[in-house]
């Protein structure tokens, strides 16, 4: 067995009296794909920063390729072949691909002048290493997120990486792009590189990694070979809680549909969409991104206008011209990108919560009823167990899961009859994820009609009472979740058996 590329033992780190890591160990072999998993606050980000030299551990040893260190600085880490690819990729959107790839190298070589021929050679070399086909002269801002990520990877390769650490690399990618990324990772592996992959998505852990390490509250709780791991054990280690795998069986589905969609079409995006939704149902709509599912949701919410087709609410034909009109008809929407579309980051939690119910919480002249607002905020913080010290703190200080709960509460505070959730548990830790699912079931049981749009197939299977698969703008099949499997859903979504 070859020597491990990275071995850390007994890493301890605390910040101002709070322990982030307690004696954590990690071992990655040469040419190994290793997954580091853990919820928010488990310490995985801190561990990464220690390994890459951003932080100095209070105690413990770091061994890279046999060399021992008590701590590193970023330059040393890079020199030893450790490259971190952050979630924002650190690319320059306004510069070309070529410049993005070459600038780092030029800087490292302490160049003062820019030689474009040399830069082009460097860039071409980089992209050929992973077989990435891209126009070197294209401005990065015109590329997709997936392409940008590949650029970040190429850049890392240029600096002779031996271990590439990827922090939640798939959070912004479509299923197709994830597959492409995994192919690249396998290719890197075949060249002898090791990959440390931070993720909490179980499917990915299973699909790509050979070994795993799970952290919880700053400590190791499990590690081993991935093939010996199963879903239940994984969830248990991540959260310390047991979760039952269950299917949702709607209890009180009332007869008449609250929402009826007939022949809805938006040219080039989706066509001839028809379905009914009854109170108490959780309708799961799944499909790849680009299948038109988000646009469909946005049409129901008044952000987009369909070219043809009709929408009926409670049996009456309606035209949803804008968001306000949608809200008035009792429709709520949790957008897929809560950071840019949902939250007002630096504003207080209570403000974020009541923003959609201001009409109700203010007098006819428009004056806010502060007491009512404070009460409403506290009420929802309680009901959804939102972990926050005070409602006047900015929502930015909350964890991803709690932030999502705030956005959810915002809609629940309205008089809703229909709630549309788009990717509600993306970037949310497992604990909050299950909380949100439980909440959805309860709401449905209380009579709310819910549409959940997600490409997290296990989530769709577990939550929905009915699944509609969308592909290239049309519904291809309606399925009963208890009678189908993930692979069947995946097949239908991609059209590939």
């Amino acid at each position, binding site marked *: 067995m070859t020597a491990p590329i990275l071995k850390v033992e007994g890493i301890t780190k605390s910040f101002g009296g709070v322990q982030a890591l307690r004696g954590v160990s990690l071992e990655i072999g040469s040419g190994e794909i290793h997954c580091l998993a853990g919820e928010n606050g488990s310490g995985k980000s801190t561990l990464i920063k220690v390994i890459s030299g951003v932080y100095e551990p209070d105690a413990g040893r770091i061994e890279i390729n046999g060399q021992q260190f008590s701590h590193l600085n970023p330059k040393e880490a890079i020199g030893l072949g450790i490259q971190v690819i*952050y979630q*924002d*990729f*650190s*690319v*320059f*959107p*306004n*510069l070309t691909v070529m*410049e993005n790839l070459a*600038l*780092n190298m*030029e*800087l*490292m070589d302490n*160049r*003062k*002048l*820019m030689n474009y021929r040399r830069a082009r050679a460097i860039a071409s070399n980089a992209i050929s290493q992973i077989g990435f086909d891209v126009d070197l002269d294209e401005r990065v*801002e*015109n590329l*997709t*997120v*997936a392409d940008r990520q590949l650029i970040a990877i190429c850049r890392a390769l240029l600096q002779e990486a031996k271990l590439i650490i990827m922090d939640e690399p798939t959070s*912004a*990618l*479509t299923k197709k*792009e994830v597959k492409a990324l995994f192919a690249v990772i396998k290719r890197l592996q075949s060249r002898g590189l090791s990959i440390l992959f931070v993720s909490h998505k179980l499917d990915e852990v299973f699909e790509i990694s050979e070994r795993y390490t799970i952290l919880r509250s700053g400590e190791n709780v499990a590690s081993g070979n991935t093939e010996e791991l199963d879903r239940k054990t994984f969830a248990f280690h991540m959260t310390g809680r047991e979760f039952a795998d269950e299917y949702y069986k709607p209890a009180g589905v009332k007869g008449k549909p609250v929402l009826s969609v007939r022949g809805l079409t938006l040219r080039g995006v989706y066509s001839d969409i028809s379905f009914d939704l009854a109170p108490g149902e959780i309708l799961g709509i799944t499909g790849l*991104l*680009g299948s038109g599912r*988000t*646009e469909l949701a946005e049409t129901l919410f008044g952000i987009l206008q369909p070219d043809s087709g009709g929408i009926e609410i409670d049996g009456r034909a309606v035209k949803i011209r804008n968001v306000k009109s949608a809200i008035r008809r009792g429709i709520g929407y949790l957008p*897929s*990108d809560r950071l840019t579309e949902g939250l007002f980051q630096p504003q207080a939690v209570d403000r974020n919560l009541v923003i959609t119910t201001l009409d109700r919480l203010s007098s006819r002249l428009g004056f806010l009823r502060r007491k009512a607002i404070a009460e409403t905020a506290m009420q929802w913080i309680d009901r959804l167990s939102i972990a926050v010290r005070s409602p006047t703190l900015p929502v930015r200080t909350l964890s991803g899961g709690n932030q999502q709960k705030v956005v959810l509460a915002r809609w629940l505070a309205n008089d809703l009859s229909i709630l549309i959730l788009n990717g509600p548990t993306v970037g949310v830790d497992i604990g909050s994820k299950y909380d949100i699912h439980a909440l959805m079931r309860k709401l449905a049981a209380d009579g709310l009609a819910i549409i959940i749009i997600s490409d997290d197939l296990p989530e769709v299977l577990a939550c929905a009472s009915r699944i509609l698969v969308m592909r290239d703008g049309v519904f291809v099949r309606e399925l009963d979740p208890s009678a189908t499997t993930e692979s069947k859903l995946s097949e239908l979504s991609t059209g590939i058996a």
Partner: protein
Amino acid sequence: MGRMTKRSEPYILAAIVVLSLLIQARSGQFFSGNNLVDLARSLIVPALFSIGCMMVIVSGGIDVSFTAIASLAMYVTDRLLLASQYSGNVILAYAISAGLGLLMGALNGFLIGFLRLPTFVVTLGTSSLFTGLMFGAFSASASDVPPSIARHGKEILFTATNPKLGLTSNMPSQILILIAVLLFAFFLLRYTMLGRGIYAVGGDETAAERAGFNVRGIKMFLYCFVGVLAGITGIARISMMSYADPSTMLGMEMTVIAAVVLGGTRVTGGVGTLVGTISGVALMTILSNSLILIGIPTYWSRVFTGAVIIVGTGVTAHQIRSTRRRHTQSQKATV
């Protein structure tokens, strides 16, 4: 070709061509040698300002203090040379003014680069500071220029004559300064790491830092450079006017910024070209100079300037929006 339409430069150049033809049609005087030389002459000072201004906007900020720096630097230099009865080469005047501009620019550079304060507001403050010093501490008032500067002002490259109206215009030698600065700036921005660094910082400052760019150093250099340029411009200005009025350049900053943005430089940073910038300045200059030629009294010139700014930026905004929409469509297939 597809990439071309996303940029503003072609539109501006087209606008210039159209406008020129229109004015020529109306007055027959536009393309006369004499008029073109006059235009070039009016162009020099705003163009010099626009180069530094553009670089700052590309780096992600907006500087409004460059006219104040230019004014104070030139004024102090002027008084100094007059007091010491200097009559040597004008180079010294440029040097002193550039040096003073450097100091003032360094203050901006320190506050913005090291203390990371927002550019617009800081330069608002330093602009106030410098004009206050000029009028307060130095009790500036209009004055003459020392002989060397006056001599320099009279240096001409060539003369253009308009045979029809019997007018002559002299191309001032200061145009050489503009050309030199343009060449230098072009080389700097395109072929040096410092220049690419300015674009990188404007694109994503955090990424620039992570990539290893010395962001603080880049910003410091940038504002010092702007200061030096401002100082040079100040001397150029008073030499062409043969008169040192401290308030002559104040107030120009808004129109320079407008010209820069008109020329396709993005207010959000990271994007901008010298060609576009100079075209923007040219367009604005043509407008203000040529309205007379088509019979519009100067009183109405500002209305047209305002209209041009609004229409020009409206077009740019539309372009950005359609690029973003195109990009978001493919993004939507991603996020």
